[in-house]
């Protein structure tokens, strides 16, 4: 019987910083292999139980702005950035407040969540794989940074991630329409999430049509293609050699959790937890070996003079509203930073580690999003189903990448929710209510006319989202500055961010494609980019105005590469300068292609856990776990016997 590790004093085999997607998967893998793992989560753990889940739902219902972080309560000890932190100025430009300090030409208006479960609590749940050519854009197209590994290296881990997250999709269609190689006969764990009526309307008008992204440019053929989701659908009997797949239910309420029932709120919260969250993985942790400590803000990674990570220093607090912290340390053979790209970079910078290449914090990326919106000719049933069930994949790959950023087009099922704040803004507008109380009010429409007008307008809303690849640029970066501390005295991230000309060229092409799409649909294009408070991402390019949004896909702050001189981590996400310090997550990605990155991040985490297991095995054997008394089921606090 091994002694129970004591947090604050004890030694662990592994310390994982962050109980989000990567951290939860790595803790699961290593705990199952017998290693003693301490997971330190800066945020609270209230979302783990069903009462916490219901509280988050109520908070979401009550929020005036239903932004991605709206269900999750603010935490002064572990603040999170919020998309509402950035507002546009009347003549262009932006103002930033909140957690980030921003000093770049354009705003970084993407958020994340510091809480047990992490940002993936409010993800949309789309899980497209990256395309093989996304891993080698430098070699193939002469821009960006290449990965030190390729699609083939990651392919088995993609499959493992698709199992761990419970992906529903159609592999044959992904192979045909996107060009993704799968092993023969591969099927996803679950059948594809049904496509929406919106998708069908798009497909009826767009499938097979050719559009040009600029006059004289070669034509591109459109095809509406279903998107894989980490969302419970119908299990596929053929999966896993005919063994099938059993979907994971909700965390926190036994025997609850069903197929997606179409709540249409994946971002920011799935009420029935049909969508994967890391809490589901945490529910399967071997609790004799994996110990979770929430309310533990890691402030520094400790290392010896030889570059060996010794452990971490963290601040433990109780009250997230008025935090008072006690500083403690924990030690382990391996330290894994899994705290989000920006937080990982911040920790490395504060700890003055992994700095040989001068790349820590640099190459900050996102998928800058351009929106297009219009009114269809007939009702399309918006605000139903997952936010997006299909996309147009033809602009993700190919030689056009030499000139402009590639992009993936998501067909939105949620009307003008993102571009215009519908349906709330529609109600206010028709009632004559303007931007604020001081603005003169129009007479307004009431009664049956109001009801009919809203039904006819909202019912026909369609929109498309263009997720642009953003290549790694050293100038886009996170730094720290002691003059900007948070409530616990930890330096806040300072963000310098801009879009390259190639991204802007991509947006110009996307805008043309957007116009073509609405023309083909026979829809009235209502897209308009104007400076103003709701358009902090407004800029002008080649004589036209554009406004972009953040996707919440932060990455690239501790990129992996083939050499110590030019990258922060190696192909295993292990810091070149510190053999037992891993920095995992989207921060490791040298390029993010046009795929929503969580699945790739999960695949990388699973791959790294294999390497960590080998590292540890070389050092010593896993501890045998005897018949320890397990902790009570559902005990979310998991405090050690310190």
């Amino acid at each position, binding site marked *: 019987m091994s002694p129970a590790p004591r947090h604050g004093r004890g030694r662990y085999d592994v310390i994982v910083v962050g109980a989000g997607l990567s951290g939860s998967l790595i803790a699961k893998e290593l705990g199952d292999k017998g290693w003693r793992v301490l997971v330190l989560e800066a945020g609270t753990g209230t979302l783990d139980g*069903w009462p916490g889940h219901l509280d988050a739902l109520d908070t979401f219902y009550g929020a005036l702005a239903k932004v991605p972080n709206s269900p999750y309560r603010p935490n002064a000890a572990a603040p999170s950035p919020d998309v509402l932190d950035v507002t546009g100025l009347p003549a262009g430009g932006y103002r930033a407040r909140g957690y980030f300090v921003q000093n770049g030409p354009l705003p970084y208006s993407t958020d994340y969540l510091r809480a047990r479960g992490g940002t993936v609590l409010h993800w949309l749940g789309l899980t497209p794989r990256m395309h093989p050519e996304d891993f080698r854009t430098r070699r193939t197209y002469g821009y960006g940074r290449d990965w030190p590994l390729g699609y083939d290296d990651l392919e088995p881990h993609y499959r493992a991630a698709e199992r761990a997250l419970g992906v529903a999709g159609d592999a044959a269609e992904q192979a045909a329409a996107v060009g993704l190689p799968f092993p023969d006969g591969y099927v996803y764990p679950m059948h594809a999430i049904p496509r929406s009526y919106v998708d069908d309307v798009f497909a009826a008008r767009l499938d097979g049509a050719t559009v040009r992204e600029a006059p004289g440019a070669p034509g591109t053929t459109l095809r509406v293609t279903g998107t894989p989701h980490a969302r419970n659908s*119908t299990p596929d009997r053929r999966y896993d050699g005919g063994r099938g797949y*059993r*979907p994971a239910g909700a965390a926190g309420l*036994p*025997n*609850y959790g*069903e*197929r997606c029932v179409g709540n249409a709120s994946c971002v920011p919260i799935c009420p029935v937890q049909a969508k994967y969250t890391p809490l589901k993985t945490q529910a399967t942790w071997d609790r004799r070996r994996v110990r979770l400590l929430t309310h533990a803000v890691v402030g520094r990674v400790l290392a010896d003079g030889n570059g060996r990570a010794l452990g971490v220093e963290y601040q433990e607090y109780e009250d997230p509203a008025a935090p008072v912290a006690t500083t403690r340390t924990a030690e382990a053979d391996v330290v894994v930073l899994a705290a989000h790209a920006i937080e990982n970079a911040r920790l490395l910078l504060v700890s003055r580690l992994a700095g040989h290449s001068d790349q820590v914090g640099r190459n900050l990326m996102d998928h800058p999003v351009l929106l297009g919106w219009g009114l269809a000719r007939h009702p399309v049933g918006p605000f139903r189903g997952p936010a997006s069930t299909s996309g147009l994949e033809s602009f993700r790959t190919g030689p056009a990448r030499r000139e402009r950023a590639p992009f993936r087009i998501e067909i939105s099922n949620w009307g003008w929710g993102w571009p215009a704040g519908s349906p709330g803004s529609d109600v206010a507008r028709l009632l004559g209510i303007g931007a604020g109380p001081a603005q003169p009010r129009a007479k307004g429409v009431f009664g049956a006319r109001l009801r009919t007008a809203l039904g006819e307008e909202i019912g026909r809303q369609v929109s498309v989202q263009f997720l642009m690849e953003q290549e790694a640029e050293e100038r886009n970066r996170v730094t720290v500055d002691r003059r900007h501390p948070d409530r616990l005295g930890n330096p806040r991230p300072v963000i310098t961010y801009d879009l390259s000309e190639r991204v802007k060229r991509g947006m110009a092409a996307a805008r043309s494609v957007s116009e073509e799409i609405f023309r083909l649909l026979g829809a009235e294009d209502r897209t308009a980019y104007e400076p103003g408070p709701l358009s902090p991402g407004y800029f002008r390019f080649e004589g036209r105005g554009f406004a972009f949004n953040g996707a919440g896909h932060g990455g690239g702050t501790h990129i992996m590469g083939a050499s110590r001189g030019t990258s922060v981590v190696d192909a295993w996400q292990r810091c070149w300068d510190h053999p037992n310090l891993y920095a995992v997550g989207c921060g490791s990605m040298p390029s993010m292609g046009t795929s929503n990155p969580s699945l790739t991040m999960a695949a990388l985490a699973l791959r790294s856990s294999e390497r960590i297991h080998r590292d540890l095995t070389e050092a010593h054997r896993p501890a045998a776990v005897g018949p320890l008394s397990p902790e009570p*089921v559902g005990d979310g606090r998991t405090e050690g016997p310190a």
Partner: protein
Amino acid sequence: MSTLPPPPDALAGPAAVPARVEEPPFRVPRDRADLHVFLQAALTLEHLTIPPYLTAMYTLRPGTNRTAFYAIRAVVLEEMLHMTLVANLLNAVGGKPLVAHSRFVTGYPALLPYSRDRIPVALRHFGTAALDTFLYIERPEYVAEPPGHPSVAGDTGWTSIGQFYNTIRTGLVRLAEELGEAGLFNGDPRRQVGPEDFYNSGGEVFPVTGLASALKALRVITEQGEGVSRTVYNTDDQLFGEAREPAHYFRFDEIRRRRSYGPHDTPASGPTGPALDVSWEDAYPIDPEAKVTHYPPGSAVRRAAERFNAAYARLLWVLEAAFTRDPAVLQAAVPAMLQLRDLSVQLYRNPHPDPARRARGLYASATYEITEELLGEARRSLPGGPGTTALPSGTRW
């Protein structure tokens, strides 16, 4: 059992004569045809409790009594699981489930069948009377031996639901011996509803293909309801590798007593865990004998009540199609039920149109009345309706 509450007050009985559910003869099923009659009766029985449970769930005022909501919801889903397992049993032995028939829906109030006592089962709002009825339905009790056993030689009728299911079990085992297992389980395996059609609801559906799976199905049905003797908990951990939960009786008991069972509690100790936030006032009181004809013709409430019954008739067809033609159709059953949710809550929140009942604080309600005419109309509307577009191509109705 000492912890059993007395029969609910309501058992003194509403004025109306409760409907009677047809019971099979008091004997062990003798042949295949007999077994079909018993299993069809079991299907009817499993369905009987669903409308009263749904009524309690959806009469809650918005946002209140969440613990109770999720507890009742879990029970409803397990009842649907049971109903589906019974359909699998019936299909497995070559029978044909009957759902979309006015005989299948007894009308409420109905007398609880297979019971020694006269227990009316009515559509009641969330409250102590409803919970007392539920407790009575799900109560664990001494289960008499099947008919023919010396210990029940003096009995002329059923004394408990447990006895009824024991009798089916005995009949199944005997017939499997007489006809051979392959001979008895000669149904079309394509009729079997599988785990891909229904999961994560306190267990999952599994196909019934022989005696072992048939007996397992009977075990799920009886153990999730009443539990296993001398424990509060069901056996989901053993049956499905899932978290065990208090059996239905004890889940209802928790709400009724506003306190949860702890891990070491027993039926004798009663619940000694944390208090539960249950507010009896936060429900819309309804008339347990409401009929559509009580609402003025042409009124909004009348139209809504009729719309509800039409949607209910459609749900019965969806279930019948899933059980008799293509299990994939079951995918459309949840959308059909959620439509019932939307239509019924609108009724419960509207004051009763009758001034006298309104003065008593009563609200309108969904009546779950089924006629052959409604069923005919509903059938003609198929295969349309919520959730049907997304059914896999080639689904058979």
